[in-house]
């Protein structure tokens, strides 16, 4: 709770600083505020409280995931100074909206009531619609925000309608009450209204996570959105929505196996196949990362299918490893786009000669996303796959494994370009601090791979 308050206050403070035109104070204040909120979040550890009649439930998985999201936001803000250094206006609005989006994400990780879930998602989404269009002069940014807004509000309708139907059949928005209702009516079969509601809810959430076949917005929106904010979308927003879905299923269907498992499994399978196969045909890194994020949502769905094996831990590790690697990739993407004006794979040619650290970071990030030991991505995949196999989802794991094999085809494109193709003399303009930041990310990826128990034993 304290972290939600502190984050909201931080957002308001940022807006005030904008009014006072204190541009140089902005980023230090934000980073400090995020650290404070992170500490406050961690202080909630083992508290297990429920607030406002189960509206918010502060439990360890929720705390862990909000900590991860705050940490990811922190990492993204570290690159903000370089990304926006040519913009002269204070930018308080963009930063504040990002923080408000984070508030929505944190709400989503604590919700104990479907209404709270909806409020969280809308707080997050409305902020994102604004962020997607924040580069007002660029037509792609305008396109992105329009697409995202139209589809997003439409699919929010699905979500709300699903929640209404669930309420209609079970008589409550409260997750635990719904769980009791499901447990009671499981043997005689759930009424069609409940199933329809569940189905609509899954569709609504799938859209937010970008699960096939509701993923079509993602590549275009990712491509049009300013790159720093795309990194935010691909990591924080993804983690928040995946965990919200996980939370819904793991509480509502605790100890219950049902038809929804197969639905989720099929969605996961389709997502992995579509994400990876389509990823092969992308001409530039940003679109490729969009498809990469789609396929990774597919892998994360394995945690939902197999949640009775207690996969919150696996999902947490996966989110952390995925977020760090993706942020690292976007950090390099920002540099390349700045130096060459685009991010076609050709722009990466020979990057390793003059920019060793940058190339190495991107290579490690790509290898980690592919899932090659001993990097963090491998351990994350291993946890998820092992949980799914334990629950008897072998066929799904084989699809996931095939997807990983296919993903070599596109994750290696930037590596091949950077290391094995002819040099074009590109020199990336990254400051010393920027270099330190990306090296920190690289070390984190390696460290989590070698010492996974730093994160894996938490929840």
């Amino acid at each position, binding site marked *: 709770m304290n972290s939600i308050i502190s984050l909201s206050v931080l957002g308001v403070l940022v807006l005030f600083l904008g009014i006072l035109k204190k541009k140089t104070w902005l980023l230090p204040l934000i980073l400090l505020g995020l650290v404070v909120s992170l500490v406050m979040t961690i202080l909630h550890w083992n508290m297990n409280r429920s607030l406002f009649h189960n509206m918010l439930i502060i439990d360890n998985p929720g705390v862990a995931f909000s900590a991860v999201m705050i940490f990811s936001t922190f990492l993204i803000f570290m690159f903000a100074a370089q990304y926006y250094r040519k913009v002269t206006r204070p930018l308080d609005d963009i930063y504040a909206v990002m923080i408000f989006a984070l508030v929505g994400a944190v709400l989503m990780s604590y919700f104990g009531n479907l209404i709270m879930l909806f409020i969280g998602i809308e707080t997050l989404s409305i902020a994102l619609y604004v962020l997607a269009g924040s580069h007002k002069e660029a037509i792609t940014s305008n396109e992105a925000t329009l697409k995202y807004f139209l589809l997003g509000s439409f699919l929010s309708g699905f979500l709300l309608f699903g929640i209404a139907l669930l309420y209609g059949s079970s008589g409550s928005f409260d997750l635990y009450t719904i769980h009791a209702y499901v447990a009671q009516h499981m043997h005689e079969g759930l009424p069609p209204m409940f199933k329809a509601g569940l189905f609509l809810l899954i569709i609504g959430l799938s859209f937010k996570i970008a699960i096939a076949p509701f993923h079509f917005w993602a590549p275009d929106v990712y491509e049009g959105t300013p790159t720093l904010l795309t990194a935010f979308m691909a990591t924080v927003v993804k983690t928040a929505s995946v965990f919200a879905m996980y939370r819904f299923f793991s509480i509502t269907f605790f100890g219950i196996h049902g038809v929804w498992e197969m639905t989720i499994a099929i969605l996961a399978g389709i997502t992995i196949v579509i994400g990876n196969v389509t990823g092969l045909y992308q001409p530039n890194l940003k679109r490729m990362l969009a498809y990469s994020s789609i396929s990774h949502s597919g892998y994360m769905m394995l945690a939902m299918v197999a949640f009775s094996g207690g996969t919150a831990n696996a999902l947490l590790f996966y989110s952390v490893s995925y977020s760090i690697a993706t942020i690292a990739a976007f950090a390099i993407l920002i540099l390349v786009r700045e130096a060459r004006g685009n991010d076609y794979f050709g722009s990466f040619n020979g990057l390793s000669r003059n920019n060793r650290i940058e190339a190495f970071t991107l290579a490690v990030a790509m*290898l980690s996303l592919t899932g*090659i*030991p*001993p990097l963090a991505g*491998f351990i994350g995949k*291993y*946890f998820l*796959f*092992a949980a799914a*196999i*334990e629950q008897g989802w*072998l066929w799904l*794991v*084989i699809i996931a*494994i*095939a997807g*990983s*094999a296919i993903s*070599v*085809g596109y994750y*290696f494109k930037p590596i*091949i370009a950077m*290391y*094995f*193709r002819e040099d074009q003399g590109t020199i990336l303009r990254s400051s010393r601090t920027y270099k330190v930041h990306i090296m920190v990310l690289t070390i984190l990826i390696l460290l989590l791979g070698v010492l*996974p*128990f730093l994160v*894996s*034993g938490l929840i």
Partner: protein
Amino acid sequence: MLTLILIVLPLLVSISLFFVRNERWARNLALAAALVEFGISIAALVQYFLYCHCQLLFRFEWLSGYGISLKFGMDGLSMLMTLLTTFLIPIIIYSSFTQKVARSSTFYSLIILMQAGLVGVFTAFDGMVFYIFWELTLIPAYFIAAYWGGENRIRITLKFFAYTFTGSLLMLVAIIFLYFRTPLPHSFDHIWLYANNLNPAEQVWVFLAFFIAFAIKVPVFPFHTWQPDTYVTAPYSGSMLLGGLMSKMGLFGMIRWMIPITYSVLNRTDGLFIIFPLVGIVYASLIAIRQDDLKRFVAYTSIAHLGLVAAGAMALNSQAMQGAIIQMVSHGINIVGLFIIIQYIEVRTKTTSIGELGGIALKAPRLAVIFMIILLGSVALPLTNGFVGEFLILLGLFKYYWLYAAVAGLTIIFSAVYMLWMYQRVMLGNTNAVTENFTDLSWKEMIPLIGIVIMVLWIGVAPGMFMKLAENGVGQIIGVIR
């Protein structure tokens, strides 16, 4: 503890090499590290014999909740493979000094990293740790071949990577699947993986996953299509690493993991899977005869020779398996020797085409003699290293089914034909414009080759120590099967 040092030392050296800017320093440091590593492995060997076959175990609970522990040790099989690795790596590094290597600190760093991965693969006694090191070797191998390689390297090496990565992922599924069939609390320890209780249908699937993964790595026909191109396009050091050491990972995996875990599938299928390597022997031999490029030639002979080893490993009796282990060592030594010689020839003549060469023996008697000895080792002449292993394999195969031994025996005839014919065309006859100014080997160049020749003769004449080590390795695995 020595086992752990053998893995950690190269890892540390590899990381520090990345930051060495001076290229001369880098390569000398790499060579020194490799030699130290060899010394440590000799110490491990001494310790092994002194303290009567203790396993030099190291164990650390890495992810205890998930049953993964860093468990390294050395039985006879691991010891032989580790010795092979630590013996060959300094030779590979030294032989690369003849050619100028761009960005050499990264190059040597990758070779040393590869060594860490290889020793890890050969000494891991935990299924998941084995897999992690297995994949760890792929990264340096890929980068060495793709960065320092020749024509079409990007396409060919990506094929190589995708092929082997797919195979290893299959293996990963099999290992995780096995893990959940171990008694509670689950464990990846090899003892528990061996003692699995799979039903027959599951065993077939697990077997297939292992078989494909290992067959790709060796490679066994029909999973060999990545291999000739990759060997040709990789730089010489890369080909030596791939042919001399990485291919042994596949065979090692068969003997250490696939056979003890799923031997019953091999029993039930009545040797069906031995047919693949046997076909490979005939097929690759016939192609090798027709090859003009020396590197491609060696690549195909490697498929044939390793096919015999794979057949021996799968015959499930102690002679054949012991022979397979000895032959893995011999083949590693011989193929590295052959690649070094081809490298010297290419440095001097700028060609690897058999048709363009000829008469080198007249100009370079030292090279001719050494080449001949290594060649005879490959042909498996008695008193050379190839003979010991191949003889035992054929003996074991004969016990298994005489027809298999008959087909496998063709390899001796075939290899005599293609090897000697190649030697005749390259070394004998009169010199031509290309080989006219061929200079003989300098003493500096001969150092690595002398090491190899010593090993060829040592294993050939007095294989006692190697047999003992192999016997120990085989004993445990046959013990599981019985």
